């Protein structure tokens, strides 16, 4: 029997808190899970710094990846024998679902910004390079790793396959919303996924939802909207992200300026040069990063030491709502006052915006760029979701954006120049103490 068709003698199951069980029968999938590149995902948290706000959010990209695989597996069971579904694409879809996040690094988003990296490039490199994953995929057929890479890159010819893991209502989002809700402990991320899976219909180049399933989709969109503001954009999590970014910036600046580290950051050197090889990239997981942060608390550089201590011991920056247009002068004055007081504003003052986040909420199509969610009418026609759902229309039309100013309130209290301190507090809190 060809490797692509090989089944395990006995089905393997992973106990999963979101989907109850993740079922594996294909030998290829089982082998992929066992690769070192996939196992590495156990050491990368799904929600980065969110655990500092919601202590339960310690789940990994490993469990999310298994979850996305499981959802696609269930979708495809429903698609079997449907005229628009090509069963030959089954294994490809399952592999792409399982491996879609393979290139995520530690605290992915902050690392990407600090070192100008793109995890998607690393996903491609892992799939196509000299790796265990590539060897497993190559065993399926020649060119199979490239096909998986194309699906994940959203450039595969069969758009229906792409849309299973990457569209406005895909297995990726359906898993992370439920998983993140479960592990953060909030109640807003829940929706009736079983119902959505039952009303999904494969069309030539997309997945549509039967109109009768509209209310289940409304719930999903609401959940996405609420999770965005309540979890992903939580201001305390953002504070931790700001500090994390500042640590990486400080360490990189020190390295570039020839600073002698007590603990040489050998794992970071290639990142500081913005060109880590695949092997170097894979070697740096969150355990390694946290080790350095803990050790850097003892560094001589007071800024690096202080920022790491804040991150490790959760001594986060405080924040206020901030309008960069109306408060432009306040920003300039604060920046100068911080400098005069000896608190380096490059590392201790930051405006953080909602656009700095890797999450989005539902938008109807945009001039042919983003495919919206389409509802399948009884006559076979398609209608965009927000045209039929007033609930979705009301939230997808809103352009809600947000900016916050982050600063170290405890450090400000220690400023010895009383006049400067009071002026800073006056700007930040709108009051000056006598």
């Amino acid at each position, binding site marked *: 029997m060809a490797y692509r068709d090989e089944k395990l003698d006995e089905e393997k199951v992973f106990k999963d808190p979101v989907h109850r069980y993740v079922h594996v029968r294909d030998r290829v999938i089982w082998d992929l899970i066992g690769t070192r590149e996939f196992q590495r995902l156990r050491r990368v948290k799904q929600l980065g710094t969110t655990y500092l706000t919601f202590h339960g959010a310690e789940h990994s990209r490993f469990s999310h990846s298994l979850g996305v695989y499981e959802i696609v597996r269930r979708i495809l069971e429903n698609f079997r024998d449907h005229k628009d579904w090509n069963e030959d694409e089954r294994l490809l879809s399952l592999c792409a679902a399982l491996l879609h996040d393979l290139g995520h690094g530690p605290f992915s988003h902050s690392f*990407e*910004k600090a070192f*100008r990296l*793109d995890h*998607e490039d690393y996903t491609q490199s892992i799939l196509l390079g000299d790796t265990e994953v590539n060897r497993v995929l190559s065993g399926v057929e020649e060119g199979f790793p490239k096909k998986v890479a194309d699906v994940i*890159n*959203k*450039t595969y*010819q069969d*758009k229906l396959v792409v849309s299973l893991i990457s569209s406005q209502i895909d297995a990726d989002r359906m898993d992370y919303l439920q998983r993140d809700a479960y592990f953060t402990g909030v109640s807003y991320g829940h929706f009736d996924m079983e119902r959505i899976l039952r009303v999904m219909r494969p069309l030539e180049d997309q997945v549509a939802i039967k109109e009768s399933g509209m209310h289940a989709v409304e719930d999903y969109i609401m959940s996405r909207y609420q999770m965005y503001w309540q979890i992903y954009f939580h201001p305390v999590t953002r504070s931790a992200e700001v500090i994390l970014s500042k640590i990486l910036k400080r360490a990189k600046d020190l390295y570039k300026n020839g600073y002698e580290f007590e603990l040489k950051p050998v794992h970071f050197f290639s990142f500081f040069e913005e060109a880590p090889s695949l092997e170097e990239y894979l070697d740096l997981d969150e355990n390694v990063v946290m080790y350095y942060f803990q050790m850097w608390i003892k560094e001589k550089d007071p800024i690096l030491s202080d920022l790491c201590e804040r991150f490790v011991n959760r001594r986060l920056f405080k924040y206020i709502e901030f*309008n*960069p*247009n109306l408060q*432009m002068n306040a*920003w*300039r004055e604060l920046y100068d006052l911080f400098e005069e007081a000896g608190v380096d504003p490059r590392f201790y003052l930051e*405006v953080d*915006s*909602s*656009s700095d986040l890797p999450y*989005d909420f539902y*938008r109807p199509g*945009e*001039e*042919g*760029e*983003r*495919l919206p969610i389409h509802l399948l009418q009884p006559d076979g026609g398609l209608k965009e979701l927000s045209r039929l759902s007033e609930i979705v229309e009301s939230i997808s039309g809103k*352009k809600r*954006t947000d*900016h916050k100013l982050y600063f170290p309130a405890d450090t400000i209290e220690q400023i010895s120049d009383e006049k400067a301190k009071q002026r800073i507090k006056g700007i930040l809190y709108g009051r000056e103490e006598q």
Partner: protein
Amino acid sequence: MLEKHARLMHFFNSCEEVVGRKRLQKMIFIMKKCGVPFEEKYEFHFYGPYSEELTLRIEEMCNLGFISEAMEEKRNYYQYRYNLTDSGHDFLEHADIERPELGGYISAMNEKSSRFLELVSTMLFFEHLPKEEIEEKVYTVKSRQNYKQEELEEAWAFIRELRPVS
């Protein structure tokens, strides 16, 4: 503060006005591929390189009053027109950012249609591939656009011409 926004404001300042969201998306992507330090992350969406970050950042700048967005109704769709406002000019004046010369890129791209810029940006998205594979990709992912070989040749020439522009 808001350096990434300020870089985009520098772009709006350099071109006075941008008409069309798709055009805006493609222009920023093409310049990014030419080495202009825009940091918006692009992914391949159904019909080409698209940046959700850029969309959100534009919304933020509109909400803050740094750029204005006017919606015009066309026959089958809405078209958006963007301008830098006085507040935007003021913010940009004080922003501590690099200000690369963008005039050459902008005037070259302004002479081209959105359809053409879509083709160029798609080719640049696949530029790590050999030329034949890039063209094959264009025909696969852009099958609905029915690009002709002459258009691809024109796009190659345009990319060669654009890259040395500084």
